[in-house]
């Protein structure tokens, strides 16, 4: 079908205000935050409920048109980029919080609710939704679920997956699937819910999400620890965990990151330090006091250059907010910011830092590293210029070698950003041909015509 009748049909179903087709609109809805990736859809729709999503999917099915779901486009692996054109379904108008159930401690939302909006809404009722990706200010819940997003609180509170109780979605043939519910236990049949989480929009289009809420911690204590060399910071992380203390947050920034963040926030971070750890312990006041003491002791033992405690909640919030800007702040250094998502068992953290240092030297690159140290999840970020071919080649060689070792250590090529377009080759390396083959069969079971978010996770011809 040519585009014109398609547009007309979509307009009839959704209303003209919810369909975009001008080139200027299409152009800006074909990227996410992954550098260097862009594609142009043929038409973009903004459904307001699951019935409208269903209608769009039906139209796409009838005419064999690819569909790509999109939240706020903050993804870091290209998941929402419509590489084969077709229809992009934006969920931003499905942004209602449908229910906050204080008896069952759950919240039910439409797919496009912004993460921080949910956090604030439940906080008003004295409840807590912990997953807090750096992008929480704008990322959508469905985007979080589809990438199984982690966040700064991941170490103690887990990732998005740990909070999803139920999902409603439209399958690629237009049928509705509801899986999970408010009951805390559920073993009826295959765990579709778990399969959908982290599926990067390739199995179904999420329309509604029910998440678990918990009571907020009564007390917390926030520290900044500075280090003269980054390996001691890595050691501090392993030793705190070894001492059986699980902080809610244990985030790391290296020197390059500290400097970029300071350029933006101007809160007096020490520019000469090699690394900084942002550590937060929370919970019952008595436990917090005890753990805080333990953390301080260990920091001193491993030789932190300085340890600073947040003066008050505002100060603590300022420090956490500063950490959230790390990636975007690094982007001010160079035109292109290539970021990776290597994750290793926590005990290998210090070695990973050493390896990053070595490879940075070897390939003559500028690298800033930050990440969720407590989760063993690092984001070594190459600051480069996509117009410099030689530099780009060195950057890719850097990641190749890094991932080889990360996999050898039992790590993963993606801790939280997903595979998308950007990391298809690495996935095959990690899970092998058998893994890819079974994933493809699962994909086929959900989407026999291959219309939903094609070209993601594994290459078409990949075995």
């Amino acid at each position, binding site marked *: 079908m040519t585009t014109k009748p398609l547009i007309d049909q979509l307009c009839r179903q959704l209303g003209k205000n919810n369909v975009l087709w001008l*080139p*200027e*609109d299409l152009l*800006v809805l074909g990227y996410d935050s992954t550098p260097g990736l862009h594609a142009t859809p043929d038409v973009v729709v*903004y459904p307001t409920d699951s019935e409208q999503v269903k209608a769009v999917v039906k139209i796409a099915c009838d005419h064999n048109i690819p569909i790509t779901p999109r939240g706020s486009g903050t993804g870091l692996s290209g998941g929402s980029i419509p590489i084969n054109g077709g229809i992009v379904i934006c969920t931003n108008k499905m942004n209602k919080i449908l229910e906050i159930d204080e008896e069952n401690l759950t919240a039910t939302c439409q797919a496009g609710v912004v993460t921080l909006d949910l956090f604030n809404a439940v906080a008003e009722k004295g409840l807590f939704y912990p997953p807090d990706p750096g992008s929480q200010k*704008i990322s959508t819940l469905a985007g979080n679920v589809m990438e199984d997003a982690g966040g700064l609180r991941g170490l103690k509170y887990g990732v998005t997956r740990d909070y999803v109780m139920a999902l409603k979605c439209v399958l690629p043939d237009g049928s509705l699937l509801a899986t999970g519910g408010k009951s805390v236990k559920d073993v009826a049949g295959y765990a579709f819910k778990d399969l959908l989480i982290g599926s990067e929009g390739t199995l179904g289009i999420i329309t509604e999400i029910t998440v678990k809420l918990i009571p907020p911690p009564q007390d917390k204590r926030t520290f900044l620890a500075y280090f003269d060399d980054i390996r001691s910071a890595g050691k501090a992380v392993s030793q705190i965990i070894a001492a059986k203390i699980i902080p809610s947050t244990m985030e790391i920034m290296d020197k390059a990151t500290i400097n970029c963040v300071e350029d933006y926030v101007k809160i007096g971070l020490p520019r000469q330090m090699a690394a900084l750890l942002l550590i937060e312990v929370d919970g019952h006041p008595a436990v917090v006091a005890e753990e805080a003491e333990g953390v301080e002791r260990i920091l001193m033992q491993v030789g932190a250059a300085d340890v600073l405690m947040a003066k008050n909640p505002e100060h603590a919030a300022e420090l956490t907010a500063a950490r959230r800007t790390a*990636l*975007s702040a690094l*982007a001010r250094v160079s*035109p292109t910011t290539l970021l990776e998502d290597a994750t290793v068992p926590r005990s290998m953290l210090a070695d990973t830092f050493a390896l990053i240092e070595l490879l940075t030297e070897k390939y003559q690159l500028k690298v800033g590293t930050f990440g969720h140290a407590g989760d063993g999840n690092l984001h070594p970020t190459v600051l480069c210029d996509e117009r410099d071919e030689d530099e780009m080649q060195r950057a890719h060689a850097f990641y190749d070698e890094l991932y080889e070792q990360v996999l050898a250590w039992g790590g993963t090529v993606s801790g939280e950003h997903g595979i998308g377009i950007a990391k298809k080759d690495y996935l095959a390396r990690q899970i092998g041909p058998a893994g890819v083959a079974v994933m493809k069969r699962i994909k086929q079971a959900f989407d026999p015509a291959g219309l939903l978010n094609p070209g993601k996770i594994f290459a078409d011809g990949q075995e």
Partner: protein
Amino acid sequence: MADPKSLGNFTAQDAPTYESLLQCMRCGFCLPTCPTFALTGRERSSPRGRVALARAVAEAKLPFTEAIKEEAFFCLDCRACSTACPSGVNPGEVMEICRSQVHQQQSLPKWQESFRNFILQKMLPDPGRLESSMLPARIYQKLGIQWLVRNSRILKLGPRWFEKAEGMLPELHTPLRQRIPELNLAKGEKRGRVGFFLGCVMTLMYAEVSRQTVRVLSHQGFDVITPKLQKCCGAPHLTEGDRETTRQLAAHNLDLFLELDVDAIVTDCAGCSAALKEYEEILHERREIDKLAKFRSLVKDVSEFLVEWGLRTEQLQPVNRSVTYHDPCHLCHAQGISKQPRELLKAIPGVEFREMNESSWCCGSAATFSLKFTAESQNILDRKLNNVQNTGADILITANPGCHLQLAWGLREAGMPQPVMHLMELLGQATPE
């Protein structure tokens, strides 16, 4: 014909640099702070979308289309995105530059000319008294009326908007510039000497505010020099994309004020101080690095200046009112000045300061009354008025004439009791004669 020096489909003169566009990593942090994105929910009307459009033009993937022109003018230039952007991107500035591209690439519609005449007549009570017949034109540009005219089609304004527009325009007075002595001497122990930059809107519409500013400055111990020969700061021309006129005005003011040999160049118009601080960049072709840097270091918004030198509070009289404060975009986003005005307010004896929610969210002044005509657009102003109301404060304080007009009009339409006052008016009340 393609100019070899041009960047993609931009013309060579006054185009954005490619680096400034590549700098955006598309993280979306700016999206929740952008009023036009909140209004339309359309990515192309967001800072991230606007930079992406400009980048597509720079990469010759898109011609400089009508839609890009629309976005360039739909952008409020409020700079909230610059504050929010950790990567140092300035989408508002990119759009400002695109406006100058509009002039180079497209001819202007005729109705715009006739509207300008209408304003000239309406707004010129006694043309003979004004220094320059261009003054009212500058004002109508500065208040965003021109913006409105250009966008009346996009915004689908009803036919009656003309009348409403008229109703909002305040009375014009004899310009303060002609009445104020060139030198006002310091009172009490003298601390220094400042040059006072008197903005066009201030001199014509808010003469009383600027009179208070000068009085406060002299009471604070500064000789205040207000050169009669000063010209418009050039901000309206920049906003409209006429960068050449801006350069001429900038050069004139720069030389004039540097000759005064003062400790600071102070203004009470946030739009002006923001523009004056950009002279360094606007005039970079003059290659007088030292001179430009000196000028840049001298320019201060009046609140910034007073906090830097320390407010003498001994003689201040109490003002027993509760106040709330609206951050003008050109002060908080363009210049990063938000603590200083609050510090001054809190230093006035008797004043009870109440912070409002979203104090740095644009009041819609760039779009002014125009937006009243669609249900959606009333949101920008309503959002602000709601936040004002929730504070229950007696007085709404701000520090920029554009915001002042918009807020005063909004409060009046909504039947709310608060008067709007410039920060310097309140400080003036506390300052003995």
